[in-house]
């Protein structure tokens, strides 16, 4: 129990009348790498955004490292925590987005060091050192002065990974991080994520890269129409799909 990093129970999320998540539960222990696959609109990205509190959710709970995030019980009612607390809870997770979302006006180093300085209140020199460490770690030791517009998509995404992980989150969330990349740039990003997995980073990964999910994951979750339709080891999911929906989905995707 002390190893539990993420626990999602019975998560429900709607946009108006449209229910996107219909009771999702799963958990990750320290060092687990879990991939979420599924068709567009199945709720994968929404699930990830709920964990990061970028989306509200109507029912269920999310615990990160023993802390219930986003909501709390008060007099038997479920109430949203303050904005300040949301900001704090959010810092427990690191998020990497499909479209990189680097700060365009800041260099690679500053992209990483900004939150270290402003959120974690580190000194400029400490923040810079940490930024340089992570730039080296993602294979960009000499691109610290480059601005996002001067980097390739793959390089931008690696800076984005460095920016998120430099904050020392309990869990890293990856949202289709290679979907916006040219094919020849995908592997450099996946290799970085794989190396983080080897080092024991806890990660929840939404991806369309089936081979990558197969290779890197301890567990694979297949989502369909807002529920977890199947989950298991990569072999169970990819080699012996028990679920008909999953079989159809896998037939129509590139492995």
């Amino acid at each position, binding site marked *: 129990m002390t190893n539990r990093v993420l626990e999602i129970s019975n998560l429900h999320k709607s946009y108006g009348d449209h229910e996107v998540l219909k009771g999702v539960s799963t958990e990750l222990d320290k060092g687990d790498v879990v991939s979420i696959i599924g068709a567009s609109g199945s709720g994968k990205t929404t699930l990830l955004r709920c964990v*990061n509190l*970028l989306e509200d959710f109507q029912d269920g709970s999310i615990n990160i490292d023993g802390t219930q995030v986003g909501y709390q019980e008060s007099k038997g009612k479920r109430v949203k925590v303050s*904005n*300040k607390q949301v*900001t*704090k809870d*959010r*810092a427990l*997770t*690191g*998020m990497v*987005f499909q*479209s990189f*979302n*680097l*700060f*365009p*006006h800041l260099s690679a180093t500053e992209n990483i060091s*900004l*939150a270290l300085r*402003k*959120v974690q209140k580190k000194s400029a020199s400490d923040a810079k050192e940490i930024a340089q460490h992570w730039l080296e770690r993602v294979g960009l030791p000499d691109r610290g002065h480059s*601005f996002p*517009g*001067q980097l390739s998509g793959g390089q931008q995404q690696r800076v*984005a990974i460095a*920016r*998120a992980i430099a*904050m020392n989150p309990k869990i890293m969330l990856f949202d289709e991080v290679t979907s916006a990349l040219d094919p020849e740039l995908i592997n450099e990003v996946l290799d970085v994520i794989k190396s983080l997995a080897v080092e024991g980073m806890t990660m929840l990964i939404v991806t369309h890269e089936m081979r990558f999910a197969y290779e890197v994951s301890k567990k694979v979750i297949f989502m369909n129409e807002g529920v977890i339709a199947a989950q298991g080891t990569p072999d169970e999911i990819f080699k012996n799909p028990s679920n008909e929906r999953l079989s159809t989905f896998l037939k129509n995707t590139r492995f």
Partner: protein
Amino acid sequence: MDYSVNYDVIWRNLHNLFYGLGLGLYMALVSVALGSLIGLVLAFSLVSKRKLFRVLSGIYVAVIRNIPLMIIILFIYFGLPDVGLTFAEQPSFIFALTIYTGAYIAEVFRGGLLAIPKGVGEAGMAVGMSNFQINIFIKIPILIRSVMPALSNNYISLFKDTSVAAIVAVPELTFQTRKINTDTFRTIEAWSSASVLYVVACLLIAILLRRVERRVAIPK
């Protein structure tokens, strides 16, 4: 048609014209600076989630942009003293110009804010920054850079608008020119000289601001 052109009187009064020119540039600069602050606050209000903010800022922009500048100037200079608010000519004019340009700059900033991809703000949230920090360290710096060309245009047009200050006896270039005209009856010389000064000044400002724009542009 025996008017003989003679610019002697202009040369003798050149220092007055330059003083007027400088005063116009100064008043436009102060107004743009203060107007930018107003514009920034208004722009964030215009895109705010709170309806009250949106409505109030919307009313400000709609009202001010649809009143001629001359009316705002006359209202503030001649109207406000009736309710006990008396300003000297120059502060009164700068006040009017600031209120006026704030409404235009608000629209410029609003467009700039809407052009910032949503994901950039979310990335700030994801690394644990508060909304305030995201605005200060991410959105506003991006905003300022992206609206620089529009702000430059605004400054130039505002500088030309300072000629209206002559109506409340602020001694800027148009006022000085009119004085030369009435003192010497060298009408063509006076107004042609003022025109040249306005054109040259505007072109120089444009070149200068273009360089500033390039300096602050986000590297690509």
